[in-house]
């Protein structure tokens, strides 16, 4: 149906410019085309369109094939090499047997809790390996502590109180200023509470004391 519409459009297209002149000059008749040439033209058009569609289909098929191959390749890469699998299957069948029922329920709660944890807190990192087969024991499965919501609630509550009491809009000042103003307004005027901040130049003072010790020691050794 699409093809028919396209043909109609294509047929309408040459008709339209042919129709245009009748709009400008109404008395001229449309161009004469013989049936054979028209048929040949239509055939050519049909073939072109068919070719295009076929090429399009081929392209899609090619893409699909390539994707399938990619998946097959990935699946093959994911599994261990054939030789290793056979060796494991053959060598300790007893150990694999008793471990697999233990591994299966083990895997399940971890898998379920992994989903839960990821659902609740997406940023958490889980380190355990899901997998029924084990290599010689060169890993550690760690179940990290659950970060439950009470900690977050408490933090929100504390932040609320802090912002209400000490946030912007509350008229807070430092303890130093508060008591210093009281000292200045007193009957007997006193110095500010932290007149000298002890942390000023702390590094310099430490270096100075070290240097003095070193200099004195040198003097002593020189004189001796």
């Amino acid at each position, binding site marked *: 149906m699409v093809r028919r519409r396209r043909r109609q459009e294509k047929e309408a297209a040459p008709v339209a410019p042919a129709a245009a002149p009748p709009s400008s000059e109404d008395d001229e008749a449309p161009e004469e085309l013989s049936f054979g040439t028209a048929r040949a033209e239509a055939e050519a058009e049909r073939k072109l369109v068919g070719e295009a569609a076929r090429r399009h289909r081929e392209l899609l098929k090619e893409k699909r094939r390539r994707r399938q191959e990619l998946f097959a390749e990935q699946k093959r890469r994911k599994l261990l090499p054939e030789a290793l699998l056979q060796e494991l299957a053959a060598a300790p069948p007893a150990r694999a047997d008793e471990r697999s029922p233990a591994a299966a329920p083990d895997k399940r709660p971890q898998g379920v809790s992994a989903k839960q944890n990821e659902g609740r807190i997406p940023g958490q990192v889980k380190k355990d390996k899901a997998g029924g087969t084990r290599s010689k024991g060169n890993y550690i499965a760690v179940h990290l502590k659950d970060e439950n919501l009470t900690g977050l609630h408490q933090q929100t509550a504390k932040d609320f109180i802090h912002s*209400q009491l000490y946030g912007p809009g509350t008229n807070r000042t430092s*303890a130093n200023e508060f008591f210093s103003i009281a000292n200045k307004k007193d009957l007997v005027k006193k110095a500010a509470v932290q007149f000298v901040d002890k942390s000023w130049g702390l590094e310099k003072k430490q270096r100075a004391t070290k240097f003095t010790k070193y200099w004195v020691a040198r003097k002593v050794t020189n004189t001796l």
Partner: protein
Amino acid sequence: MGEFEVHRVRFFGLVPAGVRCMAYQHNGRRLALARTDGAVEVYNFAANYYMEKVSGGRERGGQGWRLFGAGLSGDITEYDLERLRPARAVDGFGGPIWSMAANNDGTRLAIGCEDGSVKLFQVVPGGGVQFEKNLDRQKGRVLCLSWHPSGTHLAAGSIDFIRVLDVHSGRTAQRIMVNCHVPKSKKRECVVWSIAFLSSGTVISSDSFGRVQFWDWERGTLQDSHTVSSSAALSLAVSEKEDSIVVGTSAGATYQFQLLPVKAGGQEKRWVRTKPFQHHTHDVRAVVHTPTALISGGLDAQLVIRPLMEKVQKKGYDAALRKFTLPHRRLVSCARKARLLLFQFSQHLELWRLGSTNKTGKDGETLPLSRMPEHLLQLKSKGPEHIYCSCVSPCGSWIAYSTASRFHLYRVQHEGDSISVKKVPGVPKLLLPAYQLLCASDSGRLFIASDRGSVHVVQLLEPGGCKHLHTLRPPAGTREAVYLLASSADGNWLAAVSGDWEVHVYSLKHFKHHCTVPTYSCAVTALAIHPTTNNLFISYSDQQLFEFSIPEKQYTAWSRAVQNSGLHKLWLERDSPITHIAFNPKNTSQVLLHDVYMLCVLDKSLPLPDDSAVLVNQSTLKQLSEPARRRQLHAFKICKKFQVGSPLLFADLLDERCLVTVERPALDISAQLPPPVQQKKFGT
């Protein structure tokens, strides 16, 4: 008296935590106080405001007679006041709990949670609480709660609104918007910090704009509004008769409102703001209205008790303002022979060696130090619990401390100038919990005060071990824990005081109970056994002093003389209890006592002052001639240099020529407090 070299120690960096909430028990006249670091203290008003019990824990906000606490951790904890620890905790399941209120009978407990729900719990007589039901839940955290005295309705304050809930049906009966009366330009969210429900149907709320508003809950209308300060009004308390309320603000001021008739003798009454007080420098987060006094506790770690003049019956020292900042317990232990001091903080211990000087000088001179005091060791305690008690042995080689659930013992080796610490393994489990620790004077034994009035005696073995020798128990059992211990210098006697105020003396040679001191009506604040005469010196919280002879099992003659003549009026009117008693090894009749503001040497051989004599006469005596001095000399020699700005935490006699005093200047504490609200003063 003699000359002493005084080591004035000011490097104990104690900053007490702010007071977060209080609960008052009317019958027993006790006040329970919770601090911002989670410690709970109980003050006994009948025993002259003595701080009885302390326990450490986490951040909370609380209530109760059986004491309940609830905090931002989301669970309701009941405290066992005999064993001084949290007994059981029930999860509220509503997120952090912001407020808790008990109804008048004490049968139900309502909690307001972070998620906006109000939950009711039944108080189970045997112990603990049980969930009853959930009341109507609305969006917005419930910051404060108050029961109607009849127990039928609850008022809950949130952000921007107050609602009144019907307890029986659980529905919201009325919802009042609090933020409507502020002009649009200044509209911020209005946090209702505290609320009270009167039996007349008036709901009183205090909010973050500094307003105290009176609402009629049935109609939902505002009856009266007072703007009390420009910063938030944080706490509210109503008296029992409902004619007076006290409001605490963020600026440290407290105001009293009273219901007074408009015209004298008229019927119509209105709430009028009557008295402003400025006792605190920081936020007042908890207030309590007792029948005779207003009690406020602030973030500057002060507890202020202001008696109301019109309610005070007799004119006495009862009518004076009392301020408590420093705890009434001993936080410093002294190792006399090794000259070490152990400071107990809430989460760690510090061991310092005292400095020394090799100069001498005259009275009042400051001598230069040849060796500075050294900070030898800092021991951090693991876990969130506070360190309850600690001690260091006189030779300085053993340190023991205890939290509410664990006991630790360390062996300290001094090698020249450096020290090494090793934990002693294998401490017997039955020693938990320890309420007081004391090392014997020969450093061979450790006495551990435990619950039910029992004291464990543990032998300290040399290379680093301990062995439990015996457990001493009082003859008639008691449920309270022992909180004070004293041992004699020869190692034969041990005195123990338990929470029911009984003093028991045990013989350590035979490990049995020797005698009991006759009961007195007050709590014991300090006791000590004299090294040579084996007399037990006891000081009580009403400032009485007694001397009991252990070998003779009766009060000494001096003690009877003191009781007959009575102590000086000024001595009895001191408001802080004596926390430590020490003896002069050279002079058997001299006793060193100290409380927060003074140091006193009591000479038993001198006559006692009567009420007409001047009690503090040391400065006058210095100027008098020898015969005049002999006439005016009396037994109490008091040094009051510590009164202004530098309270005394600990004082002890190291040997016959050396005194050590640990002071805590109030300015140092103030400099480390959280930021206060700025007070705009004219000209600054």
